């Protein structure tokens, strides 16, 4: 009897110990730590990149002040500036807004609201997903052959018009996919209420679906513009200018649009290939200038990205609450 009791107490003790022992799950913590480290590595790269760029950009803005923003491309780091790059990038953003926004939103709405589930629709959807995966440099080939060499009468050849249309096409799949996703998230009851009072499909789409999906669509469009602003490879193929680019005084707006051009990412690419000799007056090198150019580009791109992230977070919160 005593033996069984002893066994029982010892077993229950060991069982209790096994269940309640506060031995820490060291392996588990290590595992979580390693995972967190992956994220922190990304943060580290981001921090080093930003710090390096901003630290080298500060002297440029101090010594050159606004001249850096208002000057044209030049062969001396004392004179070179990014005004033409900013202009080119803004015009490209304009093309994306005018061309890719309406077409992308219409296509996304069609796929979610109008299209019947048939082979043609499935083909269009597959096609759009594949277009989203085509490397940007291939879009550059499209732009070169179709818009630079083909439609020269309209684009004027290697011009910002050709670049703008090409990048609008490049970001089209992004806009279509994000639009379709946000339209899909609109509750069916909203549509049914509209149809119930006799509205047509377009009236329901315009008055109920689109306003409800607007924040999601807007997020997608901002990301698309940011993507277009940072894209350089297609512009290289289209023939953006990497060296010097003389602005002729008194050019008409059409001449400017059809003439030679450059854009912020191309300015950065060009300066990254320059010889690193300090300028005689300011002592700045093209590498320093490039850091400043990157600050300008990142300011444009990250502002758009940040706005998109904030908008999406607010939107998610509102839907949950």
């Amino acid at each position, binding site marked *: 009897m005593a033996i069984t009791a002893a066994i029982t107490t010892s077993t229950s003790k060991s069982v209790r110990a096994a269940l309640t022992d506060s031995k820490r*799950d060291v392996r588990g913590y290590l595992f979580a730590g390693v995972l967190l480290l*992956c994220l922190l590595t990304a943060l580290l790269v981001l921090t080093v990149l930003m710090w390096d760029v901003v630290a080298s950009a500060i002297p440029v803005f101090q010594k050159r002040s606004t001249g850096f923003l208002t000057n044209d491309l030049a062969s001396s780091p004392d004179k070179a500036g990014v005004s033409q790059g900013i202009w080119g990038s803004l015009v490209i953003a304009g093309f994306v807004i005018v061309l890719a926004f309406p077409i992308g939103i219409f296509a996304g709405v069609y796929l979610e609201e109008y299209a019947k589930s048939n082979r043609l629709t499935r083909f269009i959807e597959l096609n759009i997903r594949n*277009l989203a995966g*085509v490397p940007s*440099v291939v879009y550059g080939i499209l732009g070169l052959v179709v818009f630079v060499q083909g439609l020269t009468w309209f684009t004027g050849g290697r011009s910002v018009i050709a670049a703008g249309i090409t990048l609008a096409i490049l970001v089209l799949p992004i806009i279509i996919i994000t639009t379709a996703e946000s339209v899909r998230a609109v509750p069916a009851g909203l549509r049914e209420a509209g149809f119930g009072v006799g509205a047509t499909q377009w009236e329901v789409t315009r008055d109920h679906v689109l306003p409800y999906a607007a924040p999601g669509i807007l997020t997608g469009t901002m990301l698309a513009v940011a993507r277009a602003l940072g894209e350089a490879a297609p512009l*290289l193929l289209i023939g953006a200018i*990497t060296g010097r680019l003389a602005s002729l005084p008194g050019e008409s707006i059409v001449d400017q649009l059809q003439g030679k051009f450059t854009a912020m990412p191309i300015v950065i690419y060009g300066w990254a290939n320059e010889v690193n000799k300090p300028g005689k007056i300011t002592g700045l090198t093209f590498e320093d200038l490039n850091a400043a150019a990157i600050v300008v580009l990142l300011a444009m791109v990250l502002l758009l990205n940040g706005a998109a992230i904030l908008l999406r977070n607010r939107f998610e919160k509102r839907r949950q609450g």
Partner: protein
Amino acid sequence: MVTTPATLLVSDFRGNPRRMRKERFMRGLLFAAAALSIVISALIVWTLFTEAWTFLSGLIDEAGIGALIDGGKAPGWYPRNSRFDIPTIVYGTLIVSMVSIVVAAPLGLGAAVYLSEYASPRARRVLKPILEVLAGIPSVVFGFFALRVLGPDLIKPLFDTTQNTSLLVTGVAIGVLVTPLMASISEDALRSVPASLREASTGLGARKSTTVVKVVLPAAVSGIIAALLISVSRAIGETMIAALASGRLGQSPRTTDPRDPGLPMTSAMAQLAVGSDQVVGSTLAFQSLFFVGALLFLMTLALNMVAGRVVRKFRNAY
């Protein structure tokens, strides 16, 4: 006498003809927008393959098809001399994409698992934007960063490379670039694993880490494979980092050492495009741009298609 109500005709239910016309017009307009994507694809394919064919037929006339697999003593990419050793640039691309996936796969997957399984909603709101901001940085900026910091300060001392530019630096920089993509697709896959699987595992007494490794990851494996394939496809097509940091050396023929400078396909294309201001579309050297582009297009398309199939075929129905 009861007054008979006015007879209702079918036309009374047709609605306002003006609204109907508008409805048909909008439907047509929206369809046209969607159909435009097919036109774009057709244009891309047509452009690439007619121009690539022009190159091939020109090459056969001028140098013979053998110039594509240049069997000389030192085969290499010399477009100006009509020597187009395809293996040289394909090796460059393969090495770069392998290095980049070695960097991006653990970083991206680790970040995804942390965000989806461990992070509290509050931590997620703080940590997720890190990846989103990283994803928003233009690739040319990464190229500059690779040239200026990664190459001289990290890769050169660590791997004892001879110069600042190499396939290795390119691969590492592209790896960092595609990490957010890898993380975002894997995280979607992990989050779509139903909570009941995790609860069942926890209920059986499994540790959190065991649950993650033995239950959640296997359940999400199709999405993770798709994430890997899409990341490789993105790495293959990345141009600006390759153009800036690979060393742009077509003359290091068929190099298999990542520490050597080399010439990935995209870098070769950028070089042809920039060096060709005067000879738009006239010479064989310039035409080779389209051939390489078509090759690149086929490689990425194949990877993306396989990724799509993997997701559909191995998607577990919960």
